[in-house]
């Protein structure tokens, strides 16, 4: 057994490491520490962050791929946890917790053909109540252990005592209990039903977390350098630099973004179809496609932030402390690094979190249009796209859609609530 990395895996882990490093670096500043304290003093912000971290945890779990000895298939840690689900596949739809298939099929028994509901292969029919009890015990034990550990750590950091930790603990326990319950029962049932070809919906929804989070997070990796570099240059140097940069973003902005994305993705498809030898597995292929989608999304979405940063830099470069720094002979790069960028941080932070939720929603729309992630990849957009026609069936097959929407809704809602709180605390206009 050995580890392997897809391109996106590498990027995610790099991002996580650099974020931790950056956060650790920042936490040395007293002012920043106070700001974050202020943010987390709100119960809503605390809940949102716990939920977001829970999603991130699954995204990371799914970004650790390895190849088992004796097989050539690449599986992630999450796939490994769900081996019991991936090995047995049902034939078709089944409702959550059902023991039989959703539709009748024709069976010939003793020479008489009749319509019967066939039993599901995976379902053991174990007592739900009993298994739930076990799951609750397990979930309680895990969350209890985590909370005790955290409380122990907290004793050393006395200044964090006024934060609403109790809310965080309750949220965390709730999430862990919910997950362990669903996971435990997934050994005996399809907890969220199965889709058209018999795939487990719970597993699909969890796999989609990685796609959603990755699109939201990696796109900002493309957006931020572009927006910061161009926005600050335009606002700080003015003159022809400003004209040129304004020209670039007006031009990009004037192209309808969905069409630009569609055109770029279509072309990439044409190129990829022409060179099948580039990719050895479908997984690699869809991974490259995801990376390309992230790149395109980044290129189309930096203009908004760039414009904001330009305007703010224009304002900032007139402020007294910048004029003073100029008079003292601080170099231009020095002024930008020490005085401009730190004062833009709140705009950047707010827009990153807000963009994240927007991008998660965009993914679903793009997949519907057919220019999103690879159709073989698990994503909420693909789930909705496949499940769309199921609503026309009678009786309705609602669970696929429902799961995708709930998973998406919770993620987007937490990101929106967090960005609201960050805005309230960091935006200087709110300090009156």
């Amino acid at each position, binding site marked *: 057994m050995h580890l392997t990395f897809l391109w996106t895996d590498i990027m995610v882990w790099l991002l996580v490491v650099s974020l931790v490093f950056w956060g650790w670096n920042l936490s040395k500043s007293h002012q920043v520490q106070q700001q974050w304290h202020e943010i987390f003093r709100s119960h809503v912000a605390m809940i949102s962050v716990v939920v977001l971290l829970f999603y991130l945890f699954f995204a990371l779990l799914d970004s650790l791929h390895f190849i088992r000895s004796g097989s050539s298939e690449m599986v992630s840690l999450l796939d490994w946890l769900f081996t019991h689900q991936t090995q047995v596949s049902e034939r078709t739809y089944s409702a959550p917790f059902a023991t039989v298939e959703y539709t009748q099929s024709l069976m010939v028994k003793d020479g008489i053909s009749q319509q019967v509901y066939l039993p599901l292969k995976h379902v053991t029919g174990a007592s739900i109540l009993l298994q739930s009890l076990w799951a609750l015990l397990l979930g309680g034990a895990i969350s209890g252990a985590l909370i005790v550990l955290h409380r122990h750590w907290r004793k050393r950091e006395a200044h964090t005592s006024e934060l609403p930790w109790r809310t965080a603990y309750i949220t965390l326990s709730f999430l862990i209990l919910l997950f362990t319950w669903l996971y435990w029962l997934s050994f005996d049932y399809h907890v969220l039903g199965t889709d058209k070809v018999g795939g487990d919906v719970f597993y699909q929804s969890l796999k989609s977390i990685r796609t959603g989070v990755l699109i939201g997070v990696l796109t900002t990796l493309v957006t931020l350098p572009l927006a910061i570099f161009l926005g600050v240059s335009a606002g700080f140097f003015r003159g022809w630099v400003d004209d040129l940069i304004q*020209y*670039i973003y*007006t*031009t*990009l*902005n*004037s*192209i*309808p973004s*969905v*069409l*630009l994305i*569609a*055109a*770029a993705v*279509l*072309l990439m*498809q*044409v*190129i990829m179809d*022409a060179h099948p030898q580039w990719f050895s597995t479908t997984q690699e292929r869809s991974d490259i496609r995801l990376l390309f989608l992230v790149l395109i999304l980044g290129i189309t979405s930096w203009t908004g932030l760039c414009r904001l940063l330009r305007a703010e830099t224009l304002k900032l470069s007139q402020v007294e402390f910048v004029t003073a720094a100029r008079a003292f002979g601080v170099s231009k790069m020095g002024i930008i690094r020490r005085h401009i960028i730190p004062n833009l941080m709140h705009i950047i932070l707010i827009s990153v979190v807000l963009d994240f*939720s927007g991008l998660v*929603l965009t993914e*679903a*729309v793009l997949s*519907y*249009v*057919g*220019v999103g992630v690879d159709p073989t990849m698990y994503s*909420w957009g693909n789930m*909705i796209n496949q499940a*769309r026609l199921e*609503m*026309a069936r009678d009786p*309705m097959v609602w669970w696929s*859609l429902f799961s995708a*929407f709930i998973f*998406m*809704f919770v993620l*987007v*809602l937490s990101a*929106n*609530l967090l960005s*609201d709180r960050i805005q309230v605390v960091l935006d200087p*206009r709110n300090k*009156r």
Partner: protein
Amino acid sequence: MLGYIVRRIAYAIPILVGVNLITFMLFFMVNTPDDMARAQLGAKRVTPEMIEAWKIDKGYDKPLFINKEASGVGRITDTLFVQESLKLFRFDFGLSDANRNIAKDIKERMIPSLSIALPTFLIALITNISLALLLVLFRGSVLDTGMMMIAVMMMSISGLFYIIAGQVLFSKIWHWVPISGYASGWESIKFVILPILIGVLSGIGSGVRWYRSIFLEQMNQDYVRTARAKGLSEIRVMFVHVLKNGMLPILTGVVVVIPTLFMGSLIMESFFGIPGLGSYTIDAINAQDFAIVKAMVFLGSVLYIVGLILTDISYTLFDPRVKLGE
């Protein structure tokens, strides 16, 4: 004023050239005419002569940017890029891969698109602004916090959910309106009413939040305090002063959208089977019909730039301090 508009239009030309350059790079450099010919003629047994013939037939036989064989200005003008751009500037979109006249298709499909986009836009504008004014009037109350909470939630729901839920509830369960389709004339009302309702509903969350923040900012201005000190009622302050002064930031965000209403909505139209420009584009994307996508990109850019110019003009109408062209 007229001089200003002329200058703005002149300024729009380099932007459109830039747009053309981007689409050209996407469509011709990455996917060269040779590739296109091969794809169109079928992969098997394509001779170089057949490719040449196809390129001449479609007018793709010129070099991309610089024609070394021509002399003088012709070196630049007698190229694929300039010729293709000129065609677009004349709104001559040519034929689609299915040999349909794109310009004619676009003209026909604009009306169904508008019949959904325009009412959605107007109703959404009025509902969002009135709701936002109401919330600002009762700011800090339970109504305000409760509605804001609902707004965040509505904003976090995928637009696809509104459409699917709307279709299931109104068409499948209650049978109030047909699930999808379109008819011309007054018949169309029963087809467009659901898309309009859903369009308005899905935008309320973010819309109300945005207008509310604009009005709240105005509430903290000095003139509001003066107006209150004069003894004006809160309602009068809101509707006369705050609404009027909030108009400027609202215009920035709203006017630019108006021309792009012609483009229709991709998702809405394809879900509801409206034969508008949105579904036209989606069909083209699915059929990989690059000629149509290219035409729509150009049209969208032109409309966006028209929107920018209209925004500037609307400023002068609402704010006497703004004088254009100075």
